[in-house]
């Protein structure tokens, strides 16, 4: 109980500690913006790029706060703006959620290395669900074919192109482990990434400056960078989105697995766990003693990858 309270304090403290400097910075910024706004508006009208409504929305979007600093009203407003913008810019009908984390929920994941057969259905489902860039073939999940006895995925082969499973090999999946003590969060200079109370490590894409410090800090290769504008075919776009999840990313921002925040906060399984035909992926609430994930932790042989680093991942491997 105590640790939870402390955590709550820490959550607000770490972002509020430089309140005065941020405020003065914003003040300066708004002055600069006011000076530049006249030029921008007239320039836009002459160029004829986009409607006035679209420009107004973009303008408001540009000056919104970090998601954690927003009030509930502001969150609703930005979500509404992004839905409208998607309609105006891409003619896409999306439903964006800003569903808050549920109380008494801490998400955890377990991966059965003796059941996974390397089919990679999970990888494909993840790409579809999270609107990942088809152009650069971005994937959150990696599956490696490993020699038995090996535990280091750097020794595994991800580009296997033959019928699976193969005898005397096993398959190991790597994705974001949503560490409780995540080094990526500490590395971020703009506080654009943080851990939500339900344990999901998320990114505010609008606050990411693309420095990739988090990518360098992550010992699990869990983060992906958008080197170009992400491309998703219109007919394959997943319209059910979350502000912190699978919404449209920009060029030059970081993204990562969010445990499918748009699904899991609605009680659904993540896309990878639902797609797995072998039942190797177990997902659930770590704080519920009756959950499947807790059964696995209690009754199976489990280990965490690179546990000795002290990042406290919420992702366990287990075997039968």
């Amino acid at each position, binding site marked *: *109980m*105590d*640790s939870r309270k*402390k*955590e709550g304090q*820490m959550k607000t403290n770490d972002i509020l500690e430089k309140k005065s400097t941020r405020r003065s910075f914003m003040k300066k910024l708004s002055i600069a913006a006011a000076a530049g706004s006249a030029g921008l508006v007239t320039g836009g009208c002459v160029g004829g790029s986009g409607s006035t409504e679209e420009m107004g929305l973009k303008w408001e979007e540009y000056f919104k706060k970090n998601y954690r600093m927003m009030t509930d009203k502001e969150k609703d407003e930005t979500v509404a703006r992004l839905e409208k913008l998607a309609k105006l810019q891409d003619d896409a009908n999306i439903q964006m959620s800003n569903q808050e984390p*549920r109380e*008494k*929920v*801490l998400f955890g994941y377990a991966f059965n290395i003796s059941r996974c*057969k390397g*089919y*990679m*259905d999970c*990888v*494909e489902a993840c*790409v579809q669900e999270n609107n990942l860039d088809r152009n650069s073939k971005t*994937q959150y999940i*990696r599956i490696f074919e490993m020699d038995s006895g090996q535990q280091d*995925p*750097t020794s595994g082969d*991800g*580009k*296997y*192109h033959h*019928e*699976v499973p193969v005898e005397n090999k096993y398959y190991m999946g*790597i994705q974001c482990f949503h560490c*409780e*003590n995540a080094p990526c969060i500490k590395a971020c200079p703009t506080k654009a990434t943080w851990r939500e109370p339900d344990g999901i490590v998320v990114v505010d894409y609008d606050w990411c400056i693309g420095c990739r410090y988090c990518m360098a800090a992550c010992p699990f*290769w869990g983060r992906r960078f958008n080197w170009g504008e992400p491309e998703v075919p219109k007919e394959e776009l997943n319209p059910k989105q979350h502000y912190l999840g699978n919404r449209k990313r920009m060029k030059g921002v970081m993204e990562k697995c969010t445990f499918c925040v748009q699904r899991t906060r*609605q*009680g*659904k*399984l993540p896309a990878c766990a*639902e797609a*797995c*035909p*072998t*039942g190797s*992926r*177990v997902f*659930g*609430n*770590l*704080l*519920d*003693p*009756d*959950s*499947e994930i807790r*059964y*696995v*932790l209690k*009754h*199976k042989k489990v280990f965490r990858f690179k546990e000795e680093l*002290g990042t*406290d991942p*919420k992702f366990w491997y287990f075997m*039968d």
Partner: protein
Amino acid sequence: MKKIFLRSGLFCLCFVPGAVFLAGLPAMASGGGVMERIHHAEEPYDSMAIETAYQQPVKTVRAKESWQGGTFRVLTRKDSITRFRCSVCHTDKKVLVKDGALFTHDDIVMNHGKGENGLVCIQCHDEDNRDFLSDSSGKKIDFDHSYQLCGQCHFRQKRDWLGGAHGKRDAYWAGERVVRNCTSCHSPHSPAFKTKMPETYSLPLDQ
């Protein structure tokens, strides 16, 4: 002089682990650690509180086993058997030879159990009433509750399945627990998973 060095050395030896310990404290206090939080969480979560997890997209039936002291549901089987009920064909009526191919399930390949231990139809299907399965003691078992039959040999898998380490939940982690039946994933006649080509490939870790 030497003594001073020795003393300061000793002092350092005592001090360094202490400093490391102190430095470690804030890290531990701030997160609490996942394992610690898990150990302290004893109160069951009311997963029915998540109202969006109510709709079940599949046909289910209440299982005849208990899970964590409560009930759960399994996916039905009878709905996916194309020619159920079996007793429509399996009657005392004589069958013509020319209809044999249609009636003898020649599409089913048996590959359950190795070598001499390979199973035959009647070891799982009830001999007298084809609408049911039957276990080794002759007890009739409904097709929707085939886990009762499978579990008599595969008891380890059944134990894990009841707990949640084998098989999988359907669609939701919250709401009423709905898990796949044995036969939702395994063909009962040839239960091992087939080999197939992977859907895609993974890039090396440094890319």
